[in-house]
Structures are given as structure tokens and as C-alpha cells.
């Protein structure tokens, strides 16, 4: 498993933690193409905050590095890192290997 795959798996775990708390009818399966903060996405902004907090913590525990996914740099990206599982995983990967 590559580092990027591992990061994506961590993120999917964090998303699952959040959606587990939703009513059964609102739960959904998560994979790399799941949309986050995008039109047609199934996550609201407060749920995304929760996922980001969990994901930052998981990255910090796994890679022993403090990662901030909501820095000014993240907000200024042409393609929002928060668009989908794939884009957020890629952005976290860039921060980890930097």
C-alpha cells in the first residue's frame, strides 16, 4: 500500500466515523470519488469540520507530524482540497511529503 493509499484510507475511516452518527437512511458508502464540499455532496459544512479535525488527528498520530488542512494555502488552492475524498487525500499527501 502506498502512502497516498494509506492517507485515503485514514480519511475514509474518519468520514465513516462521522456518517455512522447519521440516521441509517442518510448513511452512504464512502470511496475515493465521494464528494465532500461540492454540489451533490452528502456532507454538510459542520460534518466536514468534524471530519477535518479527526483527519488531522489521525495524520498526526500516524505520521508524527502536525498537519493543518485549513491553512490559508488550502483556502487559496484553485481546486478546493475539500471537493472530494480524492482531492483531500492528495492535498494531505502533499503536506505530509513536503
Amino acid at each position, binding site marked *: 500500500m502506498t502512502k497516498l493509499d494509506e492517507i485515503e484510507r485514514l480519511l475514509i475511516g474518519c468520514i465513516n466515523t462521522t456518517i455512522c452518527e447519521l440516521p441509517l437512511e442518510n448513511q452512504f458508502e464512502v470511496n475515493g470519488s465521494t464528494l465532500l464540499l461540492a454540489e451533490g455532496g452528502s456532507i454538510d459544512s*459542520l460534518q466536514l469540520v*468534524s471530519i477535518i*479535525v479527526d483527519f488531522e*488527528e489521525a495524520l498526526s498520530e500516524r505520521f508524527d507530524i502536525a498537519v493543518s488542512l485549513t491553512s490559508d494555502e488550502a483556502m487559496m488552492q484553485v481546486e478546493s482540497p475539500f471537493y472530494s475524498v480524492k482531492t483531500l487525500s492528495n492535498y494531505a499527501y502533499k503536506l505530509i511529503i513536503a
Partner: protein
Amino acid sequence: MNNLYENKVVLVTGSTKGVGKLIAEHFLNNGALKVIGFARSSSNINQSRYYHIEVDLGDVGSVLKGFAAIKQLTESIQIVVNNAAVLTSQYSMIMPPAAAQAMVNVNLLGPFMVSREAAKMMRKTKWGRIINIGSMAASLEPIGDSMYAACKAGLSTLANVMAKEYASMNVTCNTLGINAIETDMLAQLPRDKIDAIIAGLPVPRMSKEDDILNVIDFFAAERSSQITAQTVFLGGVN
């Protein structure tokens, strides 16, 4: 010992003296599992359930390091009291900018950082109480306290917005606006000015320790889950 706060882990900022020390000791005397104190200086609270961490509340990095230290002590926090504050009372035209900046950093940015980091811990157990120590200055807006009063007014706003953000986590955020109580901070202000303000209050006396602890207990109570985004002033200030 009363067990009102049995199994609760409490964080009190500015816990080395004055109101902060009073509140920290109150939680200890009422059975809190752990009371963690944040302050720049060392503490003289000698209690096995008290854990002191030296933190400069006006420094974001220092607050984050403080929370890293907390995570070595406990996985969760239930109650936070944002009490630490600094005060320089001076006409705005001659207020040293550094003193004004220090008030923003300690009195506003500090509680913001502490609340947000604590909320991250509270969300795991879906229960929390964040209590800010405000001041009658926010309402009375006394001459010489422009920055202090603005920060304390901002503290209520901070709590009110966070109350909305954290409601789904069963975390309440409230502010206690205290009036004058004998502390080192009060000693910095002209006594005649304080006496004149107190004389004009509906309840014209300084606060007593129990006046403060009564509201702290109310905000922190299990039964107060619907009490959030509220500011309670002592002495009839509104």
C-alpha cells in the same frame, strides 16, 4: 468533600490567583477528577488532583503546547473556564499599543484557542461546558477601559457563536460577567472609580466568592444542557 463534579476533568485558565484560583479550588473541593490549570506562572495549589501547566494564553503556540501536555494527562475534558485576563486601564489616546495588543491576545485570542482545542476533545464524549469569565465593563463601558471592555464584550460573542457550532455536541458556551471582587487586577484600578461604579449598580456591593461560584455551578450543571449562549451579569448589570 462534595462530589458535585465527580468524574469531571476541568480546565481553568489563569488559575494561580484571584478568581481563577477560587474557581480551580472550588472544583477540587467538589470532587473533580482532575483540575488542570493554565497560567504563565507556577501555582501554589497543592492538591494531588491539580495539574499545573505553564502556558502563555496570549501565545497560540504556547496554548497548543499546553493542550499537547493535557493529552498526556487525560483523553477528555468536560468543563473549561476561560478566566485568564490582563488589564491595562488607560485613556485610549495614551494607551500603549503593546498593552492593547496584549489584552486582545490574552483576553480574546486565548479563550478562542482554548475553547476550540477543548471542543475537539469534548466532541468525542459529546458533553461539555465552556464558561467564559466576562466583566461588567462589557456593559458599563467605563472610560479608560476601551480595549478591555471590547475584549470582554467580544468574549460573550465568542461564546454565543461557539454555542451554535457546538450545540450538536452537547457543549454549552456561556459567559459570567462578574463585577468587582477583591483581586490583584482590581487593585490596579482607582478605588474611587470602582466605588462609584458599584454604588450605581442595582445591587450596590462588590461580588462575593459565592456569587461567582453560584453561577459557575449553574452553567456547569448537568441540568443546564439548555442554557447556552447566555451572559449572566452579577449585581444587576445588564
